[in-house]
């Protein structure tokens, strides 16, 4: 297991290098000039040229890349072209917010989704199954921003129970978490149901029953553990999706998180912020995927002996 873990962790290194190259060069491919965007229209060409020179944007692109990577290793992600503050500062203010929402949303959708999925599988084609599957279809198909708006309409506007914007207290987090958790909930319930239905027909489940193991243990230990691979995959994907896709929800609730930061950076061509934000989010995604792989191995011995 330890050997497998080390192997998987080392495999992250080439992935991260490739990621940094793609992020850096892709952003420079986007049409538009950050300096003109920053200085606004009607600024003399000489001023733009001076500013480009000062920011190092006139150096060969390879030189810029090497400088950027070197700085990353010194904990320096550059300065925002717009706010003039260090990018590290800008990100450190926003990342915890997005992570909290993504983790919270993932936990809610995973816990409830798995429980509902197991219940649906055990009651296959009966009323409860149909109910859970209908609700999950609804949550999967409904865009989360629409659900967010509906929540605001009901709980903030009509009932006045919950604050609608910002993220200053636990009460503020309720609706964003519900909005982020809901779409994953249906997805998780469906994944769990189909994985459980697949496993429950296996010979070893019949063996467990033939040995007089209580049905609860058969379902929640023997069968669920065998269903974990697709379920963990789904949880990892959901987390990645929430991390990257939080922009819309953050915008609806005016939450100062990474998603909103990313969108703002794109519109302002703030290269340092943009590439740093993408790099950080993508790195988290890679780390999460590696963790998912390690959990696979912990759950299923056949993976670690391959």
């Amino acid at each position, binding site marked *: 297991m330890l050997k497998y873990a080390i192997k998987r962790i080392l495999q992250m290194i080439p992935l991260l290098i490739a990621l940094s190259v793609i992020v850096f060069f892709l952003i420079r491919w986007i049409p538009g000039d950050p300096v003109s965007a920053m200085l606004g229209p009607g600024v003399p060409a000489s001023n733009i040229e001076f500013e480009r020179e000062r920011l190092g944007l006139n150096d060969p692109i390879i030189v810029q890349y090497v400088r950027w990577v070197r700085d990353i290793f010194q904990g320096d992600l550059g300065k925002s072209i717009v706010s003039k503050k260090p990018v590290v500062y800008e990100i450190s203010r926003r990342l915890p917010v997005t992570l909290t929402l993504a983790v919270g949303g993932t936990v809610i959708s995973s816990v409830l989704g798995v429980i509902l999925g197991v219940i649906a599988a055990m009651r296959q084609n009966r009323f409860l199954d149909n109910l859970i599957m209908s609700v999950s279809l609804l949550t999967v198909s409904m865009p989360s921003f629409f659900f967010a708006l509906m929540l605001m309409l009901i709980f903030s506007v009509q009932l006045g129970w919950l604050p609608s914007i910002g993220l200053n207290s636990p009460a503020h987090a309720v609706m964003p978490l519900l909005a982020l958790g809901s779409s994953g909930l249906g997805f998780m319930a469906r994944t769990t149901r189909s994985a459980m239905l697949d496993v429950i027909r296996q010979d070893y489940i019949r063996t467990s029953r033939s040995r*007089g193991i209580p049905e609860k243990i058969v379902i929640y230990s023997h069968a669920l553990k065998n269903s974990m691979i697709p379920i963990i995959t789904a949880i990892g994907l959901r987390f990645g999706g929430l991390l990257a896709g939080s922009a819309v929800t953050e915008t609806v609730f005016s939450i100062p998180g990474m998603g909103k930061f990313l969108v703002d950076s794109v519109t302002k061509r703030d290269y340092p912020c943009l590439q740093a934000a993408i790099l950080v989010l993508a790195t988290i995604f890679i780390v999460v995927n590696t963790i998912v792989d390690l959990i696979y191995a912990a759950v299923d011995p056949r993976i670690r002996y391959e």
Partner: protein
Amino acid sequence: MSEKLLEVRNLRTVFHTEEGEMPAVDGVSFRLDSGEVLAIVGESGCGKSVTSLSILKLIPSPGEIVAGEILYKGEDLLKKNTKEMNQIRGEEISMIFQEPMTSLNPVFPIGHQIMESLIYHGEKDKAKAKARAIEMLRLVGFSTPEKAISYFPSQLSGGMRQRVMIAMALTCEPQILIADEPTTALDVTIQAQILRLLKELKEKTGAAIIMITHDLGIVAQIAHNVMVMYAGEAVEYAPVRELYKNPLHPYTKGLLQSIPKINEDHDTLYNIPGMVPGPKDYPKGCRFCPRCEYAGERCEREKPPYVKRADGHRVRCWLYEGGEANDA
């Protein structure tokens, strides 16, 4: 021997399908005494596996036991609820299956799976359960059972997995072991080892065995009595020597004739013409009638009774009306 342990009376297990009710087992009766080895033989689809699963009430939906009695030590298992059945399963009556490759849970170590049987049947002390698991693995032929308990099924060969299945089934010292084609999926040398092991363990534990098989060679080696099934019904029952010496039912005769003999040189092996009919195509009279070379007009019209002859040999065939009709 001779104390009655299990009696199955008129068992009828059907599968509810879109085309209607399919009787996989249709009025089967037999008894099993303590220490006895009963073989149930027949072709694929004759209902022998469904019979064995019915005993433990493990028939998967859409299957259902619709009639009959399964008396274990005088108590009808069909009247017991799941909780009561779970005390019988694995502890009083346990089962090994045909497919050792898929019958063990791939994500738990084998020791854990054996210990679990003990723990859910009342063993409170984990250390004792572990010691017992090690003992069982040694008994079924693992040379280093202390190490083997932490193996996962994927690390073992088919033969070794079947040994684990046997260890698991026998760990609570059941009265009855149902072995559903335990050697079918294994190659011949391993088959012989597993059979020898079953025989040895039977001597040691005194468990009665119901051996489900389509291999008459196995029957000759291990069984005391044989029940031959065809199309969901018992067609013949006899002590094993009697059956080989004096088979009565034309189907049994056909089965015995289709075993290749080492000292005879045939270009083609005998086979029974035709196929086993599916439950929806069962003939009105004798179910074997369309394939039977002795079939007469009465066989097509009327279903023969299951008669018991003076020597205890039972048969369901119009050729032997001499016995007294008896369905139990």
